[in-house]
């Protein structure tokens, strides 16, 4: 899966930022920095998970990567070419190669159209495929996501939640995209069905080789769907690396707290549920220095004044903490709690 050295990553973010200025003439609220100076790369065929708490900017980052939202600073490159400043025609052509799957399939589907019609809609929109090439049929698209073709005539409300999410995935894959952003696609599903959709996404990715970004708040799901993970806190990536390594031995104190908060069936003796006090501060009042310092048990004076850069801690891993290099990557059993 690793590309040759010269080939650029499929999707690349360089210093990508997005801030929203407060609406209205009389508003006194400061601008909200939703995403700040994010650098990341998604290679062909790989699944990168973006995790973090609500409001951390992970969904905004997903939309930025797809070019659905303009960047305030920085850029997104697709196959090495910047999305900004692409002629409209080329942008439209790129759209077919990049797709988005949302959390709530009921909102993503048109309630008045049979689901079969909706699955092939992107082909018409993008005038695909080229004349002479084979157009995938509703039956083929349904079969690919494990749906019986008999359901094609049904309306969204006549399907179960899992079936609806399969329809949305089939629609996203109709144009055979190279890059798919999945925004919390299994959060609203029952656990037995969630496992079906995880297996489906994994299987389709293996079969078709698309690259993906999987946005989620659930580390348990991420563990089984992603190759790499990027952890976000208040708009910035604070840790990145292979998913198994990061979750087994998180380097950043925030990742450590997230991992320790996950309810587990078996908790080894002494592995207390770590309590991270308080809520994440608002993105309109990001703390100075390391944004995590007010909630960090290991914070020192430097953390209040200087923002740590995301830097390598091990091959393929990086962390944005002043002390990541000097600290042993802690297993999630750490005792340091701030009460």
């Amino acid at each position, binding site marked *: 899966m690793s590309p040759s050295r010269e080939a650029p990553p499929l999707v690349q973010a360089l210093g990508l930022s997005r801030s929203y200025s407060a609406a209205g003439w009389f508003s006194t609220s400061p601008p909200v920095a939703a995403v700040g100076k994010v650098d990341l790369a998604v290679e062909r065929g790989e699944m990168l998970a973006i995790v973090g708490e609500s409001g951390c900017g992970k969904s905004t980052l997903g939309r930025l990567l797809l070019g659905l939202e303009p960047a305030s600073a920085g850029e997104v490159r697709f196959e090495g070419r910047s999305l900004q400043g692409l002629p409209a025609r080329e942008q439209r052509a790129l759209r077919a190669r990049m797709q988005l799957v949302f959390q709530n399939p009921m909102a993503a589907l048109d309630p008045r159209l049979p689901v079969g019609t909706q699955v092939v809609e992107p082909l018409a929109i993008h005038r695909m495929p080229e004349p002479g090439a084979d157009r995938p049929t509703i039956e083929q698209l349904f079969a690919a996501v494990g749906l019986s073709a008999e359901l094609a005539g049904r309306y969204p409300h006549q399907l179960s939640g899992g079936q609806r999410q399969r329809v949305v995935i089939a629609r996203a894959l109709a144009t055979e995209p190279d890059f798919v952003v999945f925004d919390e696609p299994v959060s609203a599903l029952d656990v037995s*069905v969630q*496992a079906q959709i995880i297996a489906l996404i994994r299987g389709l990715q293996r079969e078709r080789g698309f690259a993906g970004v999987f946005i989620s*708040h*659930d580390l348990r799901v991420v563990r089984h769907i992603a190759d790499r993970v990027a952890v976000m806190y208040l708009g910035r990536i604070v840790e990145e690396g292979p998913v198994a390594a990061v979750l087994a031995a998180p380097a950043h104190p925030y990742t450590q707290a997230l991992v320790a908060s996950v309810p*587990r069936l078996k908790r080894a003796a002494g592995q207390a549920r770590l*309590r991270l006090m308080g809520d994440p501060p608002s993105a309109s009042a990001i703390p100075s220095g390391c944004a995590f310092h007010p909630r960090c048990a290991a914070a020192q004076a430097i953390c209040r004044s200087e923002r740590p850069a995301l830097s390598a801690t091990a091959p393929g891993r990086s962390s944005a903490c002043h002390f990541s290099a000097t600290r042993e990557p802690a297993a999630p059993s750490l005792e340091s709690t701030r009460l």
Partner: protein
Amino acid sequence: MAGSERQRGVSLLEARGLTLASRSGEVLVDGVDLTVRSGEILALVGESGSGKSLTALALLGLLPEDIVRLKGEVLLDGVAVTGLGGRHAALRGRCIASIFQDPQASLDPRWTVGRYLGAQFRRHGTAAGRALAQASAEMLARVGLADSRRILRAYPHELSGGMAQRVMIAGALAADPRILIADEPTTALDVTTQSQILDLLEELQAESGLGILLITHDLGIVAEMARRVVVLYGGKVMETGAADAVLVAPRHPYTRALLASMPDIEALQPPKPIPGTPGDRLPAASGCPFQPRCGETVGDCAIRAPVLTSHDGRSWACHRTELRPTQPELRRPHQQPIRERALVSLP
């Protein structure tokens, strides 16, 4: 109210053979037995359509108009309170408090936290007049909201999800209840906030002997919080017993399948889906509700409903183990039976 009833293990709230149906006659909850004891957390687990929230509403005496109780009773302190109408409501208000999944939606957006808490105290007669502000501030401190002056003046939209759930818990405790029904109290919260709220519930239960019925779909939460667990599918109890025993060595195929479908942060194997959807179930009269999704069926499963078999303080309803109750299967949750393992498609 430090009395004998606050000792651990006294039965506070009980459902006996609770059977609920829609007006059209579809049985939604079928013969459910459960007991909430003082000083103990009982987890009620199931997927959508399992009947877990309806069961909670019946315990609270808050069944919607279109649901009828066909059979069974709800007992509060051993006294049947079903069918008591207004009197049930009054009793319930004093003894049973509840919190729900979406705290922001449960709070009136036009009321400050102070007004809401004041109303709760007044309604239950637990504080009045000048004592109200003091009682409200103390209650906020008890649920971990130290900055009570600011929070009492705040409106719901000014609270984070975690703060709003703490305010709901404070309001629930204002009645000095003995039972708390918590229906998916952390499902809408972030994982770090969830952790805080679960800790708070544990502390409250430990310090006041509160009996808690915790309704959840997350077996990880059950493992961390509950002493006992009731597993529901299609309105019926599949399995019940001590939480550590049930989760380590489940005896019902549904409990096993549900455990295997849970993604584990440490496991190498991906979660194993259960085919079909939670809506697939056999109707109450024609067999085991889980039969359409079960990978371990025998002939009887689609003919008659299995009865609960009890052994070692545990109960389960399955034809397979009904046949040989002396050999309960002692598997670890993530180990699949060999027959099933062969069917797992490899990447």
